[in-house]
């Protein structure tokens, strides 16, 4: 199931909320959350839900051994992490590996035909962060399997992040307090996320596909540019919408997940971009790969290369993702060596333009899993089939208000409004604001429903990562 789905919005979520708040004790609420999460997951993966349960159980069962320092716990940690990574590797990368081995050796081994279990990239990383943190002594191992299962399978973040570390929500797993204002904030956040997905990301995706999925040898440069711009809008709104909805639902049920996006398209450098984009992934690699390898103190260049190779591969088992990771690794090294200090001395818009350009090229590499098509796209972008296409201008015109607003909301307008309201509203005003917000939420729900009706199935971009 996905969040932008009528059955989820009108059946699954309201039943979950009603049952959750009818239950009085935390332990009943935990059971409810686990039950709903398993149904949510099994809805999309009726078979691989067993793999999820198995993985969660094995890791939970042995994690108690990690609390004592020493050799034994180190071995247990190594074995458990190796198990998690092997499962990830088996399901996600075996096909890719076979394909390349066969190409290299001229053999024809048949790859195991697994489908990738939904969310495996996310939950494997969550479990690894838990194991490492327990072993480091940052958090105590969870004694209750139910609670651990709730952490791993929580449907808000199970399939598309953010990658929530156990230690951030360990207290909330054990016991949650009800804060009405906070729950209300969660509601509003959820509907904002839903709107970002349905009103912006889906429409941008349709427009991007119109240009990028067709015959690239006949695509005008303006079409190529608009296409990749639309894809940039789509991927940001899609993925950050998912995080918004996850964070919003987390707050409704008393969990606080860290922010995953911080307006990445206003970055002033590529380094800045990666501090703002998919934060839970880059900090994961920072804390569990980069720093343990020596960080900036030992073999920094090597460490950066490893991290970006892994980042690329994490996004998909295909060479273009490796290239995409390498591209960003190279740009970051470039910025570290001289570019960043140069950018710092120039006006800020120069850095913004630079990072926009870098990101647009990055999304091009990301989009085309077929390198021949990637080449054809860049040729089109450089004007191989002319520059202008009347259809592009008509399309832009037909979507001009939508496009202007979508681009504008890439900047932190909503936080600015929040701050202004905080500064200017009286306490009574704050109370009056709530019904207005509620009307806004309902209006957004109505609009999203209108756009969702007729679309029966609406997968998120980040599902298969």
């Amino acid at each position, binding site marked *: 199931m996905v969040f932008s789905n*009528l*059955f989820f*919005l*009108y*059946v699954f979520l*309201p*039943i979950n909320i*009603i049952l959750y708040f009818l239950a009085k004790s935390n332990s009943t609420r935990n059971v409810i959350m686990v039950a709903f999460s398993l149904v949510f997951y099994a*809805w999309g993966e*009726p*078979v691989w839900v067993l793999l999820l349960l198995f993985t969660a159980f094995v890791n939970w069962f042995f994690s108690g051994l990690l609390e004592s320092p020493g050799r034994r716990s180190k071995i247990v940690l190594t074995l458990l992490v190796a198990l998690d990574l092997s499962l990830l590797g088996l399901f996600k990368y075996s096909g890719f590996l076979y394909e390349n081995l066969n190409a290299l050796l001229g053999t024809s081994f048949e790859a195991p035909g697994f489908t990738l279990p939904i969310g495996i990239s996310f939950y494997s990383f969550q479990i690894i962060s838990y194991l490492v943190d327990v072993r480091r002594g940052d958090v105590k191992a969870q004694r209750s399997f139910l609670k651990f299962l709730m952490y791993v399978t929580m449907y808000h973040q199970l399939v598309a992040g953010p990658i929530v570390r156990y230690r951030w929500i360990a207290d909330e797993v054990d016991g949650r307090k009800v804060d*009405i*204002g906070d*729950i*209300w904030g969660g509601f509003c956040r959820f509907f904002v996320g839903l709107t970002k997905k349905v009103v912006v990301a*889906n*429409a941008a*995706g*349709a*427009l991007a*596909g*119109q240009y990028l*999925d*067709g*015959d690239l040898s006949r695509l005008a440069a303006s079409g190529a540019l608009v296409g990749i711009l639309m894809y940039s809008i789509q991927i940001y709104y899609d993925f950050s919408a998912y995080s918004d909805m996850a964070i919003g639902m987390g707050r409704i049920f008393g969990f606080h997940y860290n922010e995953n996006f911080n307006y990445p398209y206003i970055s002033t450098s590529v380094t800045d971009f990666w501090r703002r984009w998919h934060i839970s992934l880059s900090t994961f690699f920072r804390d569990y790969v980069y720093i343990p390898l020596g960080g900036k103190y030992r073999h920094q260049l090597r460490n950066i290369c490893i991290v970006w190779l892994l980042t690329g591969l994490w996004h998909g088992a295909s060479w273009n993702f490796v290239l995409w990771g390498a591209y960003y690794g190279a740009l970051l090294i470039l910025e570290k060596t001289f570019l960043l200090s140069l950018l710092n001395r120039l006006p800020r818009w120069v850095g913004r333009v630079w990072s926009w350009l870098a990101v647009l090229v990055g999304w091009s590499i990301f989009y085309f899993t077929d390198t021949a098509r990637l080449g054809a796209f860049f040729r089109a972008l450089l004007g191989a089939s002319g520059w202008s*296409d*009347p*259809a592009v201008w*008509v*399309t*832009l*015109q*037909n*979507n*001009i*208000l*939508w*496009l202007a607003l979508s681009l504008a909301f890439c900047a932190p307008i909503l936080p600015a409004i929040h701050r202004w309201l*905080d500064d200017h509203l009286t*306490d*009574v005003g*704050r*109370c009056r604001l*709530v*019904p207005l917000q*509620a009307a806004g*939420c*309902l209006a957004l*729900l109505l*609009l999203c*429903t*209108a*756009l969702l*009706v*007729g*679309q*029966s*199935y*609406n*997968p998120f971009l980040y599902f298969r990562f």
Partner: protein
Amino acid sequence: MKLPETNLRKLYKQCCIRSMVLIVAVMATMGVFSFVLPKPAESLVEKRKLAEMPAFSLNALFSGTYLRDFEAFYADTFPFRDAFIEMGSWFDELKGIRGSDDVKIYAPPTDSQPQTSSSQGASQPASQPQGDPDGSGSSVPAVTPDDGSSSHPSSASSQPEQSSSQSDSSSQGSSAAPEVPDGYSSNGYFVVGDTGYMLFGGYRPVAEQYAGYLTQFARSLEGQAKVYNIVVPTSSDFYLPEKYQSLSNSQKDNISYLYSLYPQQNSPVITVDAYSNLERNKDQYIYFRTDHHWTARGAYCAYEAFCQTAGLTPVSLDSFEKRTIPDFLGTVYSYTRDQKLAANPDYVDYYITAKNYEGQVVTKDQPGVWQPISPWAEWVEGGNAYSVFLWGDHPVFLLDNLDIEDGNNVLVLKESYGNAFSPFLMANFDKTYVIDYRHYEQSIYDFVLEHNIKTVIFINNAFAANTSYHAERINYLANQLPHTAGVSAAGEGQDQSGQE
């Protein structure tokens, strides 16, 4: 957020709780509605059957198809669905402007949508278009730009008695043969002012295939019947503003190319230049603005051109009685839901082309059974008004002019463009047989012999002539072996088409 006074904090909490309860109540109420309200079976707006509740099986559950189909069903039958769709198109209009040229482009839907129709797939007897030679076909429209004949209103009860079976069968038939053109422009539909266009792609290798198959077929009939080929342009060639002509490839070039192949092949196929006569009459109402078909007036241009080529005298249009169905919003409208089109509907004129006539039909449901029927389904209205001609698309239709008994019979092999055209032939021929090659399963060769047909006319719009599905279908029927035991051969034919 700090609220110092406890009663204010209480007030704030109360506001939040009430808002949350309201929102969850709205969601839950709609959820309850979605189960207790009666579920519609078909959508008049989209002219298609809605997804049905899937049958449960453990196999379907574990393979994931059960829940996917359930979601499709849930979305297809969501409460107040038509109102929501209407709201969606209203919102679409707000997203931008049409500029000084008053133009709007509609993209074909993305991958997320065809799921809805996939559940119908099982019941579709004819195959979807095969192959996709130029690789742009990933973006085929989910709501196929087929015939206005698509589905008849479900309110068959208000119709003449014999109509109920017709309307049922044609609503199935129409969803069976989507007219999705190869090389279909990925730019989708284009609306200028109050006129919508389907943008032409065209693909010469398919045009060549189409021409080749017709030649083969004509050779097999040499000595028995003359074979004419009419390829009809759609409206974009005549009316698309100069500035936007580049959005759609030239149908004139494509048709000339296709016609030029016959002399090269030394082919017995006789080509009919409908294009020039349509162009001469382009100031008349020859195409609909909200539908991809031509009007009867447009079809008359092709009839005149045919008569000229065949050495017949066309009967003057004024001599026929004209009747009109108002307020026709056709396929281009139902695909785009464009507000400008909605505000300016078309009307459908049809001409009673004989004084004394009879009609008969063979439906998909009852192959081999000839049922009496009027040539015009005069009760149709709204989005279905094009189905006034021959009741939409049926395997075989017979138009019999009772005032001509000279045994000079004609066979029209057509897609839906042939529906408006065929009735004019009644004025010149004894019996006019009309076969929709997308729905017919038996040997056409046999049919020609059996009904003593001397003239065979292929009529297709330029999109169809550039679609390999249509070419393959014609070839398939042409190569159906002549048979003596009708029943068994028909059975085989159906099996084969199922495997296509």
